[in-house]
């Protein structure tokens, strides 16, 4: 296989696996966070605004890890520097 094919296969595979494996951890963590928040809401309903706000801030922080994986995946598919280099090299040949 020449280098063009290797780069294409590696980019496509890595993009898929990045977002697939990268969203497992944040999903589990967000589930646990919401479950704990619901438990504490049931125990103290009058603190619900504080609990809700803290829950949303925590969820955003956990979500950003999945967003990092998504950004890497998008870069590999749409703004891949290795692919651009290879295409420019093949075009100028």
């Amino acid at each position, binding site marked *: 296989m020449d280098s063009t094919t290797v780069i294409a296969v590696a980019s496509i595979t890595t993009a898929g696996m990045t977002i697939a494996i990268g969203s497992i951890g944040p999903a589990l963590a967000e589930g646990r966070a919401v479950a704990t928040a619901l438990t504490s809401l049931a125990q103290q309903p009058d603190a619900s605004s504080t609990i809700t706000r803290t829950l*949303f*801030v925590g969820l*955003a922080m956990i*979500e*950003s890890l999945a*967003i990092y994986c998504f950004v890497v995946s*998008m*870069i590999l598919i749409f703004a891949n520097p290795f692919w651009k280099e290879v295409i420019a090299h093949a075009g100028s040949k």
Partner: protein
Amino acid sequence: MNLTSDQVIFWQHGFFKLNETIVTTWVMMAVMIFGAFLITRKLVTDGKVSRWQAGLEIIVTSLQGQIKEVGLAQSEKYLPFLGTLFLFVALCSLCIILPGYKPPTGSLSTTAGLALCVFLAVPHFGIRKQGLGGYLKTYTEPTWIMLPFNIIGELSRTLALAVRLFGNMMSGVMIVAILLTITPFIFPIFMTALGLLTGMVQAYIFTILAGVYIAAATLTPAPAAAPQRKPQPAPAT
């Protein structure tokens, strides 16, 4: 397919490129400034308050309440900066429902600029509140061994602010664009609604995180507790 709206260039002169992100940001700024100017021309304190003024008052008072809850007691000092952050990101997210509009916060350059503003504002407010020595001492808390970790933490949370907002807005736009090529009829509407929700949540998160960072930098350590005095017995009447 364009990842961000940076690639659409309207006008170019040497090094300076006028792309869609900059033009959209200018339009958003013009809408906000002109709208605020129109609404605050005739402010009344009593009697019949126009609904636009009432709307602005709701926004300002709820922002002040949120800033107080984050831990910044004098919310008037921080309201201009944090309020502008929230209003800009929220307005950019709200306009997603307009056709042909791409949010400028879906470009890493805009979100990096906003994160840099927060990165510069934290020492600004910290030094204003505690003086240069007091602010630099917060980097050595709780022990001086934590100094490199505090510095790295400062840089990484700025980067996280930028990438979090960029990732959320860019992914919303990209999902809708991809769906339009697959099932163009009903499903993109739901994804646009979800994009609206996440856009508003991200605006709130950005502001609250900026507020938390500023509160951490301006937190004066509590003085040692004064010894409790015995309460004086009430005089018998």
